[in-house]
């Protein structure tokens, strides 16, 4: 059944490739000299990073006063960036874990780079709360450990402490998942390299992987277990991030819809970022056969679906504010739409709700230029969503006497630019030095004899399985 269904679809990888082709073509990216475009990109990313680094250094030397925060608006740009980057990361885990559990074979082409994106995005996100502490050299105080300051312990009832645990765990597991998935490919690179530094280094990093059937067997079990663990984890991470707001009594924050709303928004923005990166990577790294229009189309559908959830969440928020008859909630919603930050609200609304509707049309989904433009707009919209939630809720709360406003300073804007610089630098180094596509997984998906096991498949009698394998393989292998 599953086989027949799969056969009707286009293959995930174009161009009738053999395993040898896959190895050669993906490793070729690592062997040849980087293109001028790559160098230009790296130069741009590094200059952003340096500017951001200078801004952060200045801020740490001088203090948080260099930001536009005030007594009324205590959270603004910085926390917006934090939530934005954490959200970006979630699509990587969706692709590597959730789509793996759903047996979506097309994910093999994008999962390595999506996971890399997760790690880099979480790195960027983690920076912001730390610099927001004002004295980042004391950041370790957030963790509970026996100490000589009392002993003084953290307040475990605070979502900010939960955040530290959630993000620490998320980063660790994403890194392990990524590294583990890379072991077979590092071995491939090692085996192709001539004796020298590269061979020694990849030999060390691949932990002398030899592709033994015992190793593969346990490796597949581990992959399944980690996917099963990462799935609830990724949902918990953004749930906890949403609690940073939802557990406060600020109108506009204090809502039970926040956890699912934030998780859907995170995947929405992350998918858009994956699309942005993939469309660039396939073009610049000549990976058109691996990242096909079909991949772009499937991801565009995911953007549309999660975008729909986000739109539903917005409408629910409006509805509940008026249905609850709570004057403060009603005020917050109207103030968002008509107040001093109305421009931010309408940017958010048009980018997140209206623009993605174009993806209902197949002609748009298969047009790479259009998808690229939409993915950028969605990212802009999702950044503004966090800005709107954070700033418009607190700048006018219960007491009109304490109302205030907020505008970012140059330092804050440069810090945001710096985080993009860090993200791009890491990503460009990644596509240059690591196989961007999971070679072993693609080979598995090619032959359909291998890959990760279909759960139902394992229970079929041996004869049926071999017969099926032969029918499927007949057409693909050369």
């Amino acid at each position, binding site marked *: 059944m599953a086989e027949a269904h799969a056969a009707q679809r286009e293959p995930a990888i174009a161009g009738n490739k*053999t*395993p*040898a082709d896959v*190895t050669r073509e993906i490793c070729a990216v690592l062997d040849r000299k980087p293109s001028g475009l790559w160098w230009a990109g790296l130069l741009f990313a590094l200059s952003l990073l340096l500017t951001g680094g200078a801004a952060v250094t200045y801020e740490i030397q001088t203090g948080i006063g260099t930001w536009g925060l005030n007594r009324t608006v205590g959270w603004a740009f910085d926390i917006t960036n934090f939530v934005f980057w954490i959200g970006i990361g979630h699509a990587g885990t969706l692709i590597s874990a959730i789509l793996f559990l759903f047996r979506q074979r097309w994910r093999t082409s994008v999962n390595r780079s999506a996971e890399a994106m997760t790690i880099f995005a979480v790195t960027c996100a983690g920076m912001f709360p730390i610099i927001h502490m004002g004295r980042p050299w004391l950041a370790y105080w957030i963790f*509970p450990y026996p100490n000589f300051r009392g*002993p*003084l*312990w*953290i*307040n*475990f*009832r605070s*979502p900010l402490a*939960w955040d530290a*645990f*959630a993000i*620490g*765990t998320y980063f*660790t*597991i994403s890194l*392990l998942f990524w590294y*583990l998935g890379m072991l*077979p490919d590092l071995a*491939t690179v090692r*085996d*192709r390299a001539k004796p020298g530094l590269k061979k020694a280094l990849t030999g*060390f990093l691949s932990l*002398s992987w*030899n*592709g*033994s*059937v*015992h*190793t*593969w*067997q*346990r*490796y597949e*079990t*581990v992959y399944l*277990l980690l996917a099963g*663990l990462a799935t*609830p*984890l990724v949902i*918990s991470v953004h749930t*906890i991030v949403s609690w940073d707001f939802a557990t406060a009594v600020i109108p506009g924050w204090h809502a039970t819809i926040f956890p699912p709303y934030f998780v859907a928004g995170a995947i929405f923005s992350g998918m858009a970022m994956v699309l942005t990166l993939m469309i660039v990577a396939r073009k610049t790294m000549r990976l058109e056969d691996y990242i096909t229009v079909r991949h772009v189309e499937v991801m565009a559908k995911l953007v549309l679906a999660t975008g729909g959830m986000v739109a539903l969440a917005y409408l629910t928020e409006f509805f509940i504010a008026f249905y609850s008859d709570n004057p403060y909630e009603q005020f917050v919603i109207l103030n968002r739409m008509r107040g001093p930050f109305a421009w931010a609200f309408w940017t958010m609304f048009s980018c997140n709700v209206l623009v993605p509707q174009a993806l209902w049309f197949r002609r748009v989904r298969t047009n790479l230029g259009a998808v690229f433009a939409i993915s950028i707009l969605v990212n802009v919209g999702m950044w503004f969503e966090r800005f709107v939630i954070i700033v418009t809720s607190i700048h006018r709360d219960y007491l009109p006497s304490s109302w205030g406003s907020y505008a970012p300073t140059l330092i804050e804007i440069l810090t945001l630019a710096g985080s993009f610089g860090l993200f791009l630098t890491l990503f460009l180094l990644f596509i240059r030095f690591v196989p961007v596509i999971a070679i072993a*997984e693609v*080979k*598995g998906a090619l*032959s359909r*004899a*291998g*890959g*990760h096991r279909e759960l139902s498949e394992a229970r079929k009698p041996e004869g049926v*399985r*071999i017969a099926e*394998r*032969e029918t499927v*393989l007949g057409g693909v*292998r050369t």
Partner: protein
Amino acid sequence: MKKHPLYGLIAEFESPEALLEAAHGARAGGYRRLDAFTPMPIEGLAEAVGFEKTRLPLAVLIGGICGCIGGFLLQYYPSVMDYPLNIGGKPFNSWPAFVPVTFEMTILAAALTTVFGMLAMNGLPTPYHPVFNVPEFELASRNRFFLCIKARDPQFDLEKTKQFLKDLKAREVYEVES
């Protein structure tokens, strides 16, 4: 048992099906000390060389339970015993608020057990493995499929086993020095 100068014989195949067939053939031929090396996981190969189920999931369950209990105690001990502090009139043991950290610690411990358990059970990293002595073995991570019959196998006999592997339609058979 006396140490054999040879680790075993390794046969090269061109396709996963040929390797699977050969693995079944070797099992049927009475060989028990088998190993196979492939560039990607092959469905059904583990059963063909006679590999029992891994006990890793059990280790992960235990790891997860330890993480869960440890994570809760990490919060219970400071909040109730070492540093009881009245926060908003909540009970010292406000367990619902401890759920998120307990959950994260469960996942963290389970995942670390998974990864390090797998590496330990697979004996990775192994700086030296005899199969790497065969120059052609570098293709095992590219597009060739290898079946190894170890010299430890009671039925192992250099000439006979070599002929046996050739009869299984191996492309080439190499001796693996230990």
